[in-house]
């Protein structure tokens, strides 16, 4: 929480940080949309011609696959945010 010391190399770069956060967020939300609303609903009929094991692919995305991707997305976000915070010298 403490403000970063005023030396030039340690000052947090807030102006650069936020646009990158927005870009990251939108990218991950695109994936979020694709695996659930995309693969699980809008493209389900098309994807159902393929199979994963014994399950039609679109159906599987709707009932299992999308959930795995959701979990992965949040951890990717955490890792990417930690990297961004280091890059822009932001200390939580």
């Amino acid at each position, binding site marked *: 929480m403490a403000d970063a010391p005023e030396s030039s190399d340690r000052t947090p770069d807030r102006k650069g940080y936020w646009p990158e956060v927005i870009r990251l967020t939108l990218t991950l939300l695109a994936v979020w949309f694709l695996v659930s609303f995309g693969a*699980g609903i809008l493209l389900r*009929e098309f994807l159902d011609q393929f199979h994963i*094991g014994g*399950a039609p692919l679109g159906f599987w995305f709707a009932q299992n696959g999308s959930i795995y991707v959701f979990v992965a997305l949040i951890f990717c976000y955490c890792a990417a945010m930690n990297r961004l915070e280091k890059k822009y010298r932001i200390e939580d």
Partner: protein
Amino acid sequence: MDWTLIWVLATFGLYIGIALWARAGSTNDFYVAGHGVHPVVNGMATAADWMSAASFLSMAGLIAGMGYGGSVYLMGWTGGYVLLALLLAPFLREFGKFTVPDFVGDRYYSGTARVVAVICALFVSFTYIAGQMSGVGIAFSRFLGVDFNTGILFGMAIVFVYAVLGGMKGVTYTQVAQYVVLIFAYTVPAIFISLMLTSNPVPQLGFIGNLRGEDISMLQKLDETVKGLGFESYLSSTKTSFDIFCITAALMFGTAGLPHVIIRFFTVPRASDARLSAGWALVFIALLYTIAPAVGAFARHNIIASVNETTYVPAAGYAQGSQLVSEAGGTPSPAWFANWETTGLVAFDDRNGDGQMQIRGPAAPDGLENEVTINNDIYVLANPEIAQLPEWVIGLVVAGGLAAALSTAAGLLMVISSAISHDLCRRTFFKGMTDKTELRVARGAAAAAVIAAGFMGIYSADLAFVAQVVAFAFGLAAASLFPVILLGIFWKRMNREGAIASMLTGLIPTFAYIWYFKLGAGKAATSEDWFLGVSPEGIGFVVMTGSIVVGVAVSLVTRPPPQDIQDLVEDIRIPGSRRSHGIADSGMAPVD
């Protein structure tokens, strides 16, 4: 029955023990567990907070009955965590207050906005909690032979102890224990059922695997079986894609906007912990949510295979009866069916008088009527017996269901009591209140909320809206709370006028639409009468888009928010940079 009692008593004792250990000493402890909860621990508590009696007992059965159509719950109730992690949780934690109406009231520098948010939070939480309390009553009355109302009193007493003594701190650690109980009770039978049907111990893999000893996949076989009996295909739905889209979206945005979920992320030390914690919460939730569709499919397959076209044998004298049937060359109905018949969760009505049990769908090719009714909860409850697991596992499942109901009820109680003691008393009506007095008021409000919730549970059968939790709670959270929080973080220009207009545009049409089609004059309406063909469960999403547009439009034609507020928004976007800002923090300093 005895095993059930032992499990219930043992787990209740555990919860009380934790409650005595985790008492709250300040409002900071009471509302946000002193901001000291480890992200993984909070993830586990969030999972228990989130998974209600309905998730635990009913969801697998719901999916089993709906097939692909049930996917809306699976995606909807997990996808919301991505929104929470990316769009809300870390920023609200950085904001550093106690409640959701705190954010709305301070970010929009308006007591009116705070009170509107309190109304939304209270309505959503009371609708939700009544269902949990009645779930507790049902569990007690069905499995422990206790009267329904007495069962609710038991549940109230136990929640009372840890919510009133420990506040969020007590609730957090009991929720962790409750998660362990419920996930164990859910996965153990699922593993054995999966082994039995598909030879694969991992239910998620059994779900996509072949049937044991056969060359056909479990899902394919199930789909053929249900279609052959005249049911809808398991792998598709008669709902339109657009409606499925809207319901899924309403559940996702609703999940992200539910106050009892959001406040869990106030309990961790830092913003970065809040996002990590959302990830862990989803891991713990996904464990149950990826198993649920497998349990549903396995159980539906099993139930049809073991019950359809067998000779009915009543519970009284089952052993002899089934022997007689076997000797005569017939197949007796399974023992579990007879056992569960006494609870009323399964029933047989011999319509054609042939003594055989026929399971049929609405479009049965042989024209026979369905004679077997099966409650959704049976798919989870009867699993241990179907898998021939020992009797103690069955009792464990009941204890798991109670854990799911109590943990969710406790989370909701925290929202209700803090909305009253903090937002209404401390921040609106009695601004000079000391911390000590507020803590006392908070305990009192929690106690009153427990009692109110208990009464709502007792009268839940008469309160028609309680049965519409999915439509009301999620629709209202999505349409009224989610937009103002999202815009409050990501759009600095969003002002007081816009926020109030947006919340009201979300609240009123959603409420009216659901009321009309679920409880009012439109109850008998068909999907053709729905607005754009969207069912009441999905309307929250449609109204949400409208309330965002209204919020933005009204903000643009009115004065921008004061500089203090704009600086505040800058601060909450950057972890570790939150400072106090005059107008936004004059009523309450942010807590680090």
